[in-house]
């Protein structure tokens, strides 16, 4: 499969907080239908960059378009074209599955009929019929995450942003979750994902590695391993981040 149609284009994107440069002139493209891994150490600037791309934070300089919309002027259109889920925030624990679907469907402007159709299909696919009217808090973490992913896709977004979606999830559920990601990508949804599991970095078509606000490497996992002469993405990560530490000390 080749990807040639950019759906996210970022050019010299920069975000400063006072004298601190959190995101330092990053440039990259994500292609339509691609699974793109956005990796980096804690504090490297991933979350700051992601907030800009989902339209909730304004950059200091640089340009970017997401799903064809400008990140300065068209943030509302961006929000309608994307889905978002994170480990920390996904669904409302006190609401039932039904209420969560209705709430998020409503926010994204679906009609009652669309919401009904979508929620029937979703609940059947996940096998959650008997839990439909139970609060989310009754579900195990892995199920919550699968449901959250499905809810984030409810309005048929072009791109879905996943911020550490599988942290702490058991190994089988983590893989079922990735099968859902593959399936969405196969249908043409673009996946933008952050993770600390380096085996998951291997599941991406391409990954970028952010170190101290800059993108230090961007390629397919296979080519990155070849370039650094190592066997795993974990070693690629350690190489990049450690080199940076040494450079700082000197």
């Amino acid at each position, binding site marked *: 499969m080749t990807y040639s149609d950019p759906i996210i284009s970022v050019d010299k994107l920069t975000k400063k907080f006072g004298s601190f440069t959190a995101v330092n002139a990053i440039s990259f493209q994500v292609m339509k239908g691609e699974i793109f891994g956005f990796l980096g150490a804690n504090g490297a600037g991933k979350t700051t960059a992601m907030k800009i791309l989902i339209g909730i934070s304004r950059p200091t300089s640089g340009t970017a378009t997401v799903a064809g919309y400008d990140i300065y002027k068209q943030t509302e259109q961006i929000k309608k074209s994307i889905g978002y889920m994170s480990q920390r925030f996904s669904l409302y624990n006190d609401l039932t599955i039904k209420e969560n679907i209705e709430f998020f469907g409503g926010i994204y402007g679906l009609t009652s009929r669309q919401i009904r159709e979508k929620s029937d299909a979703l609940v059947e696919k996940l096998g959650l019929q008997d839990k439909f009217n139970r609060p989310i808090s009754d579900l195990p973490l892995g199920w919550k995450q699968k449901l959250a992913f499905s809810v984030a896709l409810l309005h048929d977004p072009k791109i879905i942003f996943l911020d550490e979606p599988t*942290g702490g999830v058991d190994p089988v559920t983590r893989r079922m979750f990735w*099968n859902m990601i593959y399936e969405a990508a196969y249908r043409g949804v673009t996946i933008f994902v952050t993770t600390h599991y380096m085996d998951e970095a291997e599941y991406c078509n391409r990954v970028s590695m952010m170190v101290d606000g800059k993108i230090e490497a961007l390629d397919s996992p296979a080519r990155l391993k070849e370039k650094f002469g190592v066997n795993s993405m974990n070693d690629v990560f350690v190489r990049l981040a450690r080199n940076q530490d040494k450079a700082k000390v000197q």
Partner: protein
Amino acid sequence: MEIRIESISKSFGDVRALVDVTFDVNAGELFGLIGPDGGGKTTLFRILTTLMLPDSGNAVVAGYPISDYQAIRRSVGYMPGRFSLYPDLTVEENLKFFASIFGTTVEKNYELIRDIYVQIEPFRDRRAGALSGGMKQKLALCCALIHRPKVLFLDEPTTGVDPVSRKEFWEMLDRLRQDGMAILVSTAYMDEASLCDRVALIHQGKILTTDTPANITVTFGRPLYAIRTSNVYEVTRDIESYAYARTIYPFGEHLHYTDKREKPDPIELEDFLRGKGHHDIELTAIEPTIEDAFMELAETHSQILTQ
């Protein structure tokens, strides 16, 4: 033996958080409690550090029964999963505070924490709340060590921490173990199991197995194959329709496959996939990892439950 756990059970309403948990940790041993969130790891830590009573069962920590909470609290260090230092105090103030409530001084035990503390010392006047994730974790470890405990409890110290900081953290634990301290550390990262002397795999409140990492992978007990392909999604879907397929899971750059038969036929499987139009398949017999073993044991365990 620094930790002895005998048949500990604990329920919260209908939820059985811990079911008949039994294992030991020796002095100088780095022992991993490995399993996903919701498995019961934190509940067990809270019982062993005397913050919670079990419904049944016994435990002895640093030579004291868990009913003797005053003695245990003096003898153990505990780093909870959630950052629990004082965010408004500086790095140095936090450390002095923890030393003084344990009736000691930073100077007296500085040797034990020196390797770790030098990394955060440049920020000693910074408020703890303003530290980065990796530095908070190092400070928390210093505070848990400052009274030179006999037993150290670390509840998911590496969750949400990037691979570089994780590696550094495990190197620190390796040095502490050499001092003779018993360390019980929990993690949801299966790859960290190989860094422990022994591990207990925990899932849904039950210990699936306790052994050295090497012995656990031996118990996997069936041929395992790695499949390399450029089209993970379609190959997975096609293998699911293969008559002898038992499990197929993505594993890093490969798919891991097990067969329903005792003696699988890899050539037949390759032919099957070629017939489906996959021509870039590479199939190799491999040794299982801890994560393969965990998934296998967890699956067997839930089958027993549903029977």
